[in-house]
């Protein structure tokens, strides 16, 4: 036999009626939300004497927001705000400093790498530059920059990259859809 559903019991059980709500919010329970998740304004029938009906949710929010029992918004005193501002400013300067350091490191590293590449470009298979070769009396410049060219080869760079990234990722689908025929 199937066990009876507990849903009904749960719905009407007194324990679910939470008494922990502040008394100012208890009106909300009676006034359940009846919105049909649409963003357009709901046209309600006009009363002849009064203006358009107010949204009950807005009324509720107003009631609680401006209720005398609602505590005033928290604000810093003047000195406190100034101290806060000082600390905030110092923290921002600190972050600035950090950012500058990182940038400088990156720049240094980039420069070092480009210098290394340049040195490699000027060197032949024996590690000699053109000047050094003329010094020892050799004039074979065929090998010069070979190591550099090999280092700069781009073959196999995309090997491990999934096929989806073969096309640049865009916000909208392409006009022709997915090309299933395509192979590498």
């Amino acid at each position: 036999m199937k066990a009876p559903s507990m849903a009904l019991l749960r719905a009407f059980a007194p324990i679910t009626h939470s008494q922990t709500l502040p008394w100012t919010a208890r009106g909300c329970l009676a006034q359940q939300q009846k919105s049909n998740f649409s963003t357009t304004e709901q046209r309600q029938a006009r009363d002849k004497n009064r203006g358009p009906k107010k949204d009950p949710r807005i009324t509720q929010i107003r009631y609680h927001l401006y209720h005398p029992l609602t505590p005033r918004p928290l604000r810093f005193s003047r000195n406190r705000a100034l101290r806060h501002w000082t600390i905030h400013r110092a923290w921002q300067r600190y972050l600035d400093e950090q950012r500058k350091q990182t940038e400088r490191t990156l720049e240094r590293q980039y420069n070092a790498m480009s210098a290394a590449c340049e040195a490699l470009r000027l060197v032949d298979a024996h590690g000699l530059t053109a000047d050094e070769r003329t010094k020892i009396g050799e004039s074979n410049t065929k090998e010069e920059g070979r190591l550099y060219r090999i280092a700069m080869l781009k073959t196999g760079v995309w090997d491990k990259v999934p096929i989806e990234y073969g096309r640049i990722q865009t916000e909208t689908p392409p006009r022709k859809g997915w090309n299933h025929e395509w192979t590498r």
Partner: protein
Amino acid sequence: MALERSARPLAQSLRCTRHERIALPIRSFTSSTARQETETQQQSTKPPLDPFTVATPRLERKLLREQKKIPIGSRRRRAAMLTSPNIPFVELPYQCFQEARKYLQEDRTQKLEEIRVQRERIERLADKVVVDPSEQQKKNHRLRSMRQYLEELKILADINDPMIKKKFEDGQGDMNKPIYRHLADKKWRSHKRLLLMQRIEQMHVTPDVLAKVDPIVETTLSFTGPSRADRHRVARMVQHGDIVDSRVSEKAPTLRIQPFQKGEKLYTIAVINPDVPNVAADAFDTRCHFLACNIPVSPTKPYVQLGRLNKEQIVLPWLPAFSQKGLPYQRMSIWILEQPPQGELPAGSNDALPSKPLDVKALQENEKSSTRENFNLRGFVGHTKTTPVGVDLFRTVWDEGTAGVMRRAGIIGGDVEFKNKRIEPLPYKRLKENRYR
């Protein structure tokens, strides 16, 4: 003693400051008896009344009676001040705050060092002798950009100081210093300038009077109000574009022209009304209500009383703003024109050049600049080589005082009423009895 201070709030309510005078026998951890302390306290004379610390209504009345001073701040605040140790803001013992201050001070010394280095660099470059004109141009450009960077550094050195921020917010900033000028400029541009530009554009002051304007000085307009019972006159501030009662604008206003750049300069002020009706042409003309030249204004001396200028400065004295019955509102646009500088500064220097004074005699004799009707401000600006740097606006309409204002100023036409020309409806739109057909 420190212990006692920490224990005091327990024994005393903040609101009831009378307890201050009743020496409570607080048990402090001392070997001597508490009674001795109370005795010494009783011997001390009462402290003099201070407008910052009087906290009871009785003492407030006494202060007003004896020293003719009004207490400062709320009673709650004064009561709190009575018991506070009154530590200066920068010495407040909060660890994070003090650490932050230390860090900012380090940053400031760094900036000062940078300023010194930049100054030296500028000097070195300025001393360099260059012959080639293209090289000279390059050098001047470089000097100018270096100077700009130096000015930026000056502001960056001071902008993180909480005391400077506080002073500026209290309105005690010294406008001779670049940092306060920078802050004032920022504040003006954040709201007031936007509002001014909105009014100027919505009411089509540009391009009706001048083609365009990019204000760089703040203008605040105020008229002297009617005298009160105690013979004090209260200045009436006028929002940009406000409609002003004609009796209020009968006397010349006071302008506050706040430049945000260093140095004293000469300005020309013109008040132009572009809404003068021209019935014959079925159009509108302009009229100049005021024109004065060579008015010195500096960041620290911004006030200009248009009614109290010298005879040598005024070309056209103040004519009260008026409208006529049946007319729409009249826009009274106030233009601040900066006079051209004398000569040229060497590139990279930070001095402010004095302005070239205009020849008022010649302007008075010149028919174009000395007639109010059909005054052409575009022509005037081009002729005198001035640049519009500020603008303000108020409006005037026909009200119950305008007839009297016009009579007192000797302007004819106070009894004229303008009416729209009645356009006869087309025959088929007429009422039945008026139709001919």
